[in-house]
C-alpha cells in the first residue's frame, strides 16, 4: 500500500509552519504508524531533505512520549491506544492522511510534530508525590488498602501523561490528566497526608500554565489511550471543593522531632 501524507512542518516555535505533502514508498500494512514515518524519513534523508521530527520512545504504549494528531484525532483512529500502537492496516491504499502536532497554547511547538509538554511535569512537581519515612524497608502488606480503592487507583495510574486529552479539548483543558494524577494518590492511604494540599497545588499549577477550564464535552475521555474516565474529574472536583472549604492548615509552632 501507499499513502499520501500531509505533514505539519515547522522549523521552530518562532517560525510559522505549513502542511507539506509526501508520497510514501510501498508500505507493509503491519508497519506501525511511526515505522511508516521512519521509512518516509529515511527517504527524505537520502534525498538530502531534513527528516520529519516526531516524538517517540517505548513504541508499545507505556511511556506517553508519542503524540500526533492523525486526521484530526489525537493518537489516531482507534480508541484506547496510542499513536505508536496504530498500524497502517487501519488505513486504505491511496489514503490522504493529515498529521499534525498536539495543539494547545501551553504545548509550544518545538519542531514539526514535536511539542513541549514540560507544563505537565511542573503540574506533577506541584503535588504528585507522597511523604515516606526513611530507614528500614516496611513490611509488605502493612498498610491495608480496600480492594475497590486499589482498583480505582490503578485505573487512574494508567495515565501515561501524553497530553492527548489537552489536544482533543476545545478549551485545551488538562483536567483529565490532573484528575488522574490527583485521584491515583488520593485514593490510597499513602496519599492521605497531602490529599487536600495536593489537589489545590496541582489545580493551581494547571491554571498557571494556561490550560483551559472543563466544560464536560468528554472529548478527552474519547481519545485517552488509557481510557481514563470523566469520573476522575468529578472525584477531583469534589476534593478541590473540600480543600477550598477546609482552607490552608494553620502552621503549628515548635514542630520537628
Amino acid at each position, binding site marked *: 500500500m501507499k499513502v499520501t501524507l500531509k505533514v505539519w512542518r515547522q522549523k*521552530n516555535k518562532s517560525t510559522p509552519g505549513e502542511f507539506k505533502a509526501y508520497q510514501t514508498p510501498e508500505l507493509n500494512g503491519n508497519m506501525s504508524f511511526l515505522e511508516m514515518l521512519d521509512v518516509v524519513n529515511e527517504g527524505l*534523508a537520502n534525498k*538530502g*531533505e531534513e*527528516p520529519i*521530527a516526531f516524538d517517540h520512545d517505548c513504541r*508499545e504504549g507505556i511511556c506517553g512520549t508519542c503524540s500526533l494528531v492523525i486526521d484530526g484525532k489525537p493518537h489516531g483512529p482507534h480508541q484506547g491506544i496510542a499513536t505508536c500502537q496504530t498500524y497502517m492496516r487501519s488505513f486504505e491504499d491511496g489514503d490522504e492522511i493529515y498529521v499534525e502536532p498536539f495543539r494547545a497554547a501551553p504545548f509550544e511547538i*518545538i*519542531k514539526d510534530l*514535536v511539542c513541549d509538554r514540560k507544563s505537565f511535569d511542573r503540574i506533577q512537581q506541584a503535588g504528585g508525590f507522597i511523604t515516606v519515612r526513611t530507614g528500614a524497608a516496611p513490611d509488605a502488606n502493612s498498610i491495608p488498602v480496600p480492594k475497590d480503592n486499589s482498583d480505582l487507583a490503578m485505573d487512574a495510574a494508567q495515565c501515561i501523561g501524553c497530553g492527548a486529552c489537552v489536544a482533543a479539548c476545545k478549551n485545551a483543558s488538562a483536567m483529565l490528566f490532573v484528575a488522574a494524577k490527583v485521584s491515583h494518590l488520593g485514593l490510597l492511604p499513602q496519599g492521605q497526608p497531602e490529599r487536600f494540599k495536593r489537589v489545590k497545588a496541582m489545580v493551581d499549577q494547571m491554571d498557571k500554565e494556561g490550560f483551559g477550564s472543563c466544560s464536560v464535552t468528554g472529548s478527552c475521555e474519547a481519545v485517552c489511550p488509557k481510557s481514563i474516565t470523566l469520573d476522575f474529574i468529578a472525584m477531583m472536583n469534589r476534593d478541590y471543593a473540600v480543600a477550598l472549604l477546609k482552607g490552608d492548615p494553620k502552621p503549628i509552632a515548635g514542630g520537628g522531632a
Partner: protein
Amino acid sequence: MRIYPAVHYTMGGLWVDYNLMSNVSGLFVMGEANFSDHGANRLGASALMQGLADGYFVIPATIAGYLATQSPGKRPKTDHASFVQAEENIRNMQKLFMNSKGKRTPASFHKELGKIMWDYCGMARNKAGLEKALQLLPALREEFWQNINVMGQEMDWNQSLEQAGRVADFIELGELLCLDALKREESCGGHFREEYQYTPDDEETKKGLVNPGDVKRRDDEFAHVSAWEFAGVGKQPILNKEPLIYEEVHMSTRSYK
C-alpha cells in the same frame, strides 16, 4: 497491566551493589537498566516487575541511606574536571557527526546492526555465528565513523544527531553482547547456545529426566555473573566474575518434563 509480545531489548545492565548503587557514588540504577535480576532467565513482563520491585520496595529504603551522608551544597559542580571533560567529549562527537560528509544515515547503520544481531546473536546462537558477528561489528563501527551523514543543524532540535549518538553506543553494546554470548559456553535462560542442549544420547535423556533439545546449563563453570569492564573503544573489555553463591536455596534446572 496489559502486556503483548514485542521485540525485546537487552537483558542485563549496569553493575550495581546490593543497594542498587553503581560503582559511581550516588548513581543509582533501577529497573531494566541494572543487571541485578536479569541476565539469566526472563519471562514475559519481568522487566516491568523489576521496575516495580526496584521502584516501590528497594530504592525508597536504600537511597535515603546515601542521601543521609550528603551535605547540601557539597555536591560536585558543573565546573568539576570530569564534567568539563565529559561535555567536551560530547561536543567533539557532535562536531564530528555534523562535519562528516558521509553517505549513510544513522538509521541505515541501526538497521544493519539489527540484522547482524538478529542473525547471529538472536534467540539461538552458536560459536560460528558469534565469531562471524564479532568480525562484522568492528567493520561496521569503522564504517559508521567514516561514512555517517547527519542532517540538520547542531544547535537545533535534531533527532538525526541524537540517533547517531545512540547508534554509536548500540554498536559498542552489540559487540559486547556477542562477546559475552561467545564466552558463555552453556545454555541458560534467555541465552540458548545451540551446542549446549540435551541429545537423545545423553544419560539424563535416557533416564527420562530431560527431553532432547532441553537447555544444558553448566553450573560447574558458569555459575557466575559476567561483569564486563569497559577498557576503551575497540579494546577487549575486562571480565570480572562474580560467583553466584546461594546458601539456603540452591539452584536447580527447570524441566518441562
